């Protein structure tokens, strides 16, 4: 037996494809869940899920991904019973199916490394507890007709009859050379007005024509169906197999309508319908690198043209060169924008996943919760969307566990039994704001502070000096939990610190707004992309750094005699506003230069501001941020950027510096007395 080669291109493709299948299965389960609540089960949805499970089983088989294959096989069996109508879709069973789906996603994420045998067994036993229905007695449909149908088709036929729909047989013929195309087009058309139950090869034969009998169930009458078929100009005839609405008590009547015309398209084609290309994101990263290098080269040309313009003899060439450079710049930014556009995916992809996840969580917690999503079309970089998955999951988990009250409690408080969580996203400049809002209990800042003290996370003297907002922020400390009982989903004190860490890594900001008894709002402000960012290159104590412009609130020029004054306490006053200030070199532990005119880069985090003082502003550039090695973790540094010939620059994390300075100021570790 060959072992799974995790690095092989094919295996990676398999993972991507399996992920897609699980995603679409998740969407199907969502619809199914809603259907179960409403009491209508759409056979097409059930079938879609069944097909996903089937495809996945096949793929896993090829790659010997046994655990996943086993589970998808089991799921396929259960779904098969459901779609054949041999089992009833109960709430309980739906839950088992959703659990199976979640587990499959988990197994896939582990890339075959984890051991899930215990969980698989429990899910499998849940799935196998399907309550089989007794087969229905055969009714008025003729046996010989039934005999050619599969069990599923028969089931659908009966369902259609039960729903009082008309059953027609559409007999069509297509030229043998192009039948596939014609058939597809026709069924697509029929599907808009009916359910296609089965397609049977017809007994009629001809050397250049293929005949099909398409069995459909529809609420439309025969004239209508023959009308839409005429539009197709396919050569067809329609037999009426059953019209329960007009003749409820009679045996099905067979009628034949002969159609005329001819299938228009004569030549077949092997072209795929889809024009989509699946691309590994690392290839896009590579293109981004080249674009950023082009930007650096361009800035070289730009300084050359400036020099030429100043040179009397060559100033004409300088002007020409600068014009050409402007054109180059325009095209370059177009190129950058289009590559960025390729990376963008709607955040709905992510929101959709929480729908099923939440249903499961709520059930486990014994709560009634509905989820509302807004702004699903808001686009974000694919990588960021993936990175957001964990933090959002932790927030939702916490909301379900701690914020939303049990139905009875809610009723007693005069709230509706069903709690609601709304996920919304909207774009705001270069950022996307993601809001997770609930109508639960809200967070009690006092309680948070007391818990943090009792758990020994902060000293009482320190905690007493905190503002309400700062107290709320304690929930992001590692090890924080307000619940003493560890539940299956949360309470282990793991989670919110992960949220903070992940969001910070994305150069994002978290804000919390909470009203006791009314609910809480988590606002995550995330840059649209990290692939390429506008950066300000600055110099401090002889070293250059890149500062992402999207995290800068404002930039100040600090002349010795300007309005801005720096006092001895390490704060700066600009237009009568005082804010803390830190010299970048001091923050990093280098001796600062003695330069008189300096610049202040103002960073913001919630209501806090910090002025970071540096020597020079050098230039503005588009740069690609690379993470520093995992072996080096330095507060205040977000990563590095490769500037080609000009070497590597560190990229500052200004909100990180702000965070760190606030912390160090509080504990008195850092003396920023002289700026």
């Amino acid at each position, binding site marked *: 037996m060959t072992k799974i080669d995790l690095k092989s291109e094919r295996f990676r493709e398999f993972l991507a494809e399996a992920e897609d299948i699980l995603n679409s299965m998740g969407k199907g389960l969502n619809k199914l869940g809603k259907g179960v609540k409403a009491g209508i089960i759409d056979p097409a949805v059930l079938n879609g899920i069944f097909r996903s499970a089937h495809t996945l089983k096949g793929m896993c088989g090829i790659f010997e991904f046994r655990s996943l294959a086993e589970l998808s096989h089991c799921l396929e069996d259960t779904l098969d019973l459901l779609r054949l109508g041999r089992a009833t879709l109960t709430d309980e069973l739906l839950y088992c199916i959703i659990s199976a789906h979640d587990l499959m996603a988990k197994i896939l994420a582990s890339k075959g490394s984890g051991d899930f045998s215990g969980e698989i067994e429990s899910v499998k036993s849940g799935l196998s507890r399907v309550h089989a229905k007794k087969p229905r007695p055969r009714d008025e449909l003729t046996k010989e007709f039934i005999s050619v149908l599969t069990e599923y088709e028969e089931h659908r036929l009966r369902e259609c009859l039960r729903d009082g729909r008309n059953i027609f047989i559409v007999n069509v013929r297509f030229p043998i050379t192009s039948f596939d195309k014609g058939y597809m087009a026709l069924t697509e058309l029929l599907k808009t007005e009916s359910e296609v139950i089965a397609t049977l090869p017809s007994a009629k034969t001809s050397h250049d024509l293929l005949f099909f009998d398409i069995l459909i169930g529809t609420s439309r009458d025969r004239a209508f169906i023959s009308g839409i078929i005429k539009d197709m100009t396919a050569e067809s005839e329609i037999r009426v197999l059953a019209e329960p609405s007009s003749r409820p008590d009679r045996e099905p009547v067979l009628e034949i309508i002969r159609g005329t015309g001819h299938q228009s398209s004569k030549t077949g084609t092997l072209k795929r319908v889809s024009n989509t290309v699946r691309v590994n994101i690392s290839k896009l990263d590579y293109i981004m690198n080249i674009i950023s290098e082009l930007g650096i080269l361009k800035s070289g040309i730009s300084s050359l043209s400036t020099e030429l313009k100043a040179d009397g003899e060559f100033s004409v060439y300088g002007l020409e060169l600068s014009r050409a450079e402007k054109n180059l710049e325009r095209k370059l930014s177009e190129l950058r924008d289009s590559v960025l556009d390729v990376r963008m995916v709607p955040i709905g992809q992510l929101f959709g996943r929480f729908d099923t996840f939440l249903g499961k969580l709520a059930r486990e917690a014994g709560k009634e919760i509905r989820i509302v999503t807004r702004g699903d079309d808001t686009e974000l970089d694919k990588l960021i969307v993936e990175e957001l998955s964990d933090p959002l999951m932790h927030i939702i988990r916490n909301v379900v566990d701690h914020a939303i009250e049990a139905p009875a409690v809610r009723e007693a408080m005069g709230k509706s039994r069903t709690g609601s969580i709304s996920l919304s996203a909207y774009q705001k400049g270069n950022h996307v704001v993601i809001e997770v809002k609930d109508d639960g209990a809200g967070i009690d800042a006092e309680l948070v502070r007391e818990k943090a003290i009792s758990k020994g996370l902060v000293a009482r003297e320190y905690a007493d000096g905190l503002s309400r907002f700062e107290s709320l922020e304690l929930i992001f400390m590692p090890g924080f939990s307000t619940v003493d009982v560890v539940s299956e989903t949360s309470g282990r004190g793991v989670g919110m610190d992960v949220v903070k860490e992940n969001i910070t890594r994305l150069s994002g900001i978290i804000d919390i707004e909470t009203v006791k008894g009314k609910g809480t709002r988590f606002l995550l402000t995330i840059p649209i992309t990290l692939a390429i960012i506008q950066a300000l290159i600055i110099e401090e104590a002889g070293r250059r750094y890149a500062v992402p412009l999207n995290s800068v609130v404002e930039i100040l020029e600090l002349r010795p005699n300007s309005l801005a004054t720096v006092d001895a306490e390490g704060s700066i006053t600009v237009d009568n506003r005082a804010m803390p200030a830190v010299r970048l070199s001091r923050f*990093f532990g*280098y001796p600062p230069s003695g330069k008189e005119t300096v610049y202040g880069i103002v960073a913001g985090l919630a209501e806090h501001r910090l002025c970071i003082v540096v020597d020079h502003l050098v230039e503005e550039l588009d740069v690609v941020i*690379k993470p*520093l*090695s995992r*072996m080096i973790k330095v507060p205040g*540094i977000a990563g590095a950027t490769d500037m080609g010939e000009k070497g590597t620059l560190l990229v500052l994390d200004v909100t990180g510096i702000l965070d760190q300075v606030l912390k160090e100021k509080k504990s008195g570790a850092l003396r920023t007395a002289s700026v």
Partner: protein
Amino acid sequence: MTSKYGIGLKIAEEASSQQTVAPTEEHFTSSFEQKKSGDEGTINIISFFLGLDEYAFEVADAVEVLRPRQVTEVPRTPAYIKGILSVRGEMVPVVDLRMRLGLGSSESRPSSRILVVAVEDLKMGLMVDRLAGVKEVPQSLVGPPEEAGPNALFMKGVINAGERMIRLLDASALVDAEGQ
């Protein structure tokens, strides 16, 4: 076995003699590929000098050899971390190996090289004074590490090659020590 070893040592001596120009980066990188899979009972090592002492890594740990170049200093890191270097678009920390092993800081010289090792997907560049070469060594010559003390953690063993002694370093211990 002994004849094999003899040949290996000869190559090493050629490479280490001053007449021979230090092997090109390409040369080493390609020889890594060839030597990754050693025969049973032998290990492939890439050895180098720190001052007068010879050290080595297993070839399987090494990725490539770079000529010294400007590294970007990273603040608030230990002194032996010289900074980071972009290696094919990936940011790799560069460590002064002499300083890491408590042998004083190394000075840049024409023969200096940066040897990039990788443990799983984590890469680390190590500044070494001079490369000796890639050689095949019988497992029987590899003894347990002799030194106790602060560096014992980074030692995998000692190769006793006649009069010479090569200290075999543990790349994963060096990488792990930086935390993740």
